[in-house]
Structures are given as C-alpha cells and as structure tokens.
C-alpha cells in the first residue's frame, strides 16, 4: 500500500510529544532540570497539536470529523481522545506551573498526562490490528510504535534541557536514552522481521529505523555521561535520527502490508 504520510507524521509527532511530556513528569520527581519544565511542556504541547493536525490532512471530509464522537469504540476515536487528554493535561500543568501551584498537584497532573502520552503511542499502532491484514496483526506492531517514540521524546526533552537548563545533571536521561534506544532497535526489528520485508526498500528502511530510532540515540545516551558538555549536539543529533527512524518504521508498516485479498484492486 502507498505510504500514508499524514498518518506517519501523526503517529511520529504525537508519540514524540507524549514521551517528551513523560520526561517532564519524570523530572518533576527527579528535579534535575527544573528550568526546562515549562518550555519542554510547551514544546510537547506544540508537537502534539501539530501531530494531531497532520492526521486531519488525510481526511477527505474533515468538516465531518465531529461525527467521530458518535462511535467511541473505533481506534480513531481512541487516538483522538488520548491526544485531547494529553493536551488538556499539558495545558493544566502549564497553568499550575505559572500560578506556582503546589508540587503535589503539578506532579499528579504531569503523571496523568504522561500516562496518556505514552499510551497514545501504543494505541496509535493498536488501531492497525486488523484481521484483514495478517502482517499487521501482532502486538509487536503497536509495541514498535511505542518503543520508537520513546527515544524521540527523550531526545526532544534533552534538546530543551540543553537550551534552557544549562549545567543540569542529565545523567539519568542519558541512561534512559541508552536503554530507550536499545529497546527501540529491538522493537522495530522484531515487528518488521516478524512481518517479513518483501523487497530491498523495506530492508533499507528497517536499517534506517534500527540505526535512527535505536543505535544512534543509544550511542548518544551512552556518551552523554562522559561528555555532558556536548549535550546539545548529542540531543539534537539523537532527535533528528530518532525522528527519521520512527518515520521509517511507520513507512515500513504501510509498505509491508498484504491484505487477505483486494478483489477490486483499489489503490488506497
């Protein structure tokens, strides 16, 4: 099937925003880069909104989108609900932050938003589990969606930390990026190898996904502990590679699918 770029960008960006806000929530407890909390939350909100808008561009009748509220069991409804809940939580968090509300309330809202953000990545992949498309029909697919979004979110958070919280101790986030990168590489490879790449393009995209979403962020995460002065370069490089890797993983999904039958032979 043709790559559905709107949906590729939707899932890659909302996944990044959700996991980025999860880092903000984690730092509410660790307190390593307090100066980055507000700008990182703003950035996560902006990325999630841009991702949400990207999904609308593949609809032929976006004017009827409110009709989605009438069928709350569909995957699209779930995704829209989670994006909405994530954005509401981030906005509430920002208001609490600006009004210097109690740390307990801020932490609670941040954790709830983080849960929505992380769940969003998984559920975006879960929507594609259809009996009609056998090589989409594995929990490895949404797991790969989630795992490839994690390095994106951590790297994006570290970019903000590098810009707004200079001198912050980012060692825990470096370790998280290392672990997240390894898991992303394993997750992406696991699904794609299970589904069975059919041609050289899909194999090449798998290499890009594993290197971009996994190996490069993991290597940068490992080096962060030794070279904290290179935080911006490491985080920026990781972010770019993780985004390209996450996009590649999602592109493979569209290219690799083979339906049970396509008797009218329509090109979607």
């Amino acid at each position, binding site marked *: *099937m*043709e790559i559905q770029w709107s949906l590729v960008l939707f899932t890659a960006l909302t996944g990044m925003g959700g996991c980025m806000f999860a880092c903000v929530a984690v730092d509410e407890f660790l307190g390593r880069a307090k100066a980055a909390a507000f700008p990182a939350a703003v950035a996560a909100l902006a990325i999630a909104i841009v991702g949400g808008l990207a999904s609308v561009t*593949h*609809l*032929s*009748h*976006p004017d*009827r*989108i409110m*009709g*989605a509220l*009438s*069928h709350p*069991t*569909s*995957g*699209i*409804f779930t995704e*829209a609900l989670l994006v909405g809940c994530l954005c509401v939580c981030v906005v509430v968090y920002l208001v609490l932050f600006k009004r210097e509300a109690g740390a307990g309330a801020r932490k609670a809202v941040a954790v709830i938003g983080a849960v929505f953000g992380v769940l969003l990545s998984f559920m975006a992949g879960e*929507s*594609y589990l*259809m*009996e*009609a*498309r056998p090589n989409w029909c594995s929990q490895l697919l949404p797991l790969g969606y989630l795992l490839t979004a994690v390095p994106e979110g951590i790297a994006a958070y570290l970019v903000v930390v590098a810009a707004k919280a200079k001198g912050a101790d980012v060692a825990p986030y470096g370790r998280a990026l290392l672990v997240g990168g390894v898991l992303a590489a394993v997750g992406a490879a696991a699904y794609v190898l299970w589904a069975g790449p059919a041609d050289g393009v899909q194999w090449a995209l798998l290499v890009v996904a594993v290197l971009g979403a996994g190996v490069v962020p993991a290597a940068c995460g490992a080096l962060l502990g030794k070279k904290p002065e290179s935080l911006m370069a490491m985080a920026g490089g990781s972010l770019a590679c993780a985004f390209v890797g996450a996009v590649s993983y999602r592109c493979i999904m569209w290219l690799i699918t*083979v*339906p*049970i*039958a*396509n*008797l*009218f*032979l*329509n*090109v*979607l």
Partner: protein
Amino acid sequence: MSRNCLVVDLDKCIGCHACEVACKNENGIALGEYWNRVLQIGPHGTFPDLEQYWLPVQCQQCEDAPCVHVCPTGASYRDADGKVLVDKEKCIGCKYCMMACPYGVRSWNAKEKAVEKCTLCGQLTSAGQEPACVAACCANARFYGDLDDPNSDVSKAVAAADPASLHTLHDAGNKPLTRYILSDKIATWHDVDAIKPASDAQDAAWFAKEA
C-alpha cells in the same frame, strides 16, 4: 435480525459480466469504480486437464463486519434489516473501512470523496424487486434473500446444493454471509487467500496466472 445476502451459483455463472454492468447502471458507478466485479479464477491445472471458473464479488454482508467496527463516525453501519451499509453523508474519508475489509470490495467514490459499496440495491428490494445484478443474470446464477427465511430464494438455493459445494470467501472471523456454490465437476474451489496475494497496485492478471 434478517440475514439478507446474495448466493451465487458458480456452476451456472458464465462470466458474462452482465451483473457488473447492471450494477454500474443501476447505481451510477463511475468508470474504474466497482460495487460488484466478476473475476476469472484460473485456468488451473495442466493441459488438457484445465479448469476455470468465474467469481463475482461484492460486499459479503459479514455478520461480524470489521468495516463497521473500525468506522469512527458510524458511516459504516448495520441497518434494521441487518444489511451493512454506508451513510456517505457521515463518511470522513479516512478509508479505515477499506483497509479493514478482508476482501477489498469497498469502493472509493472519487467525485464524492467517500467510501461506498454494494447496497444489495435497497432502492429496488424495498419495492419488492430483485437487486439489479440478480435481475440481469442471464444464467439465473444469482439469488437474493434472507438466509433465515426458508422460503427465500437464497435459502432454497443453499438447500438444493450439495453441502460439499457450498463455499464462502476466506473467513477471518468476520463471518461472510454470501454463499458460493461450486461443485468439483466444474472446478476446484480456490480460497482467495490461497491464491498468492498481490500488492494492492498490481493488475488483475494475477488471478489468471496463479495455478
């Protein structure tokens, strides 16, 4: 709830495509778009032992229709008569239903930018007439009715057939209602997923090439 569907006797079908043309005329379907399509399955075997049959395909009126499950707006729905239909006024064009259909028998209306499919000619059957494809079938190979009504044409056709000759398209848990009658004396039934699947963009020739 009724189980309205089509039954197609492939022992009788001559592959004239009259049902396909009648469907397009009755429902005003654009060039290149289909609600019903006749496929050539075969020839299979080794000369001189060759066999071939024709497989008319359209919405299979699945009892557990995946298109209805995935539709975010309820545009794909099951009506009071149990028919799976599309309300094009509600369709947002996400095409999830087209992805979820195990058979790819939904059609994209490029002009209206909405998904559509076989309606079992509700405009005709509600007035007591047969669907256009059934009425146009010169081989009397197509039947319409309620599988739960023993006096319906479909129930009679199914009852008259050898149980070994009754087939459905591949059931992925969606429980297709449409029944096909094909006896071994005409050809061996080939499930659609047993034929090597092609990519979505490939031409129809693969149906004929696969042995």
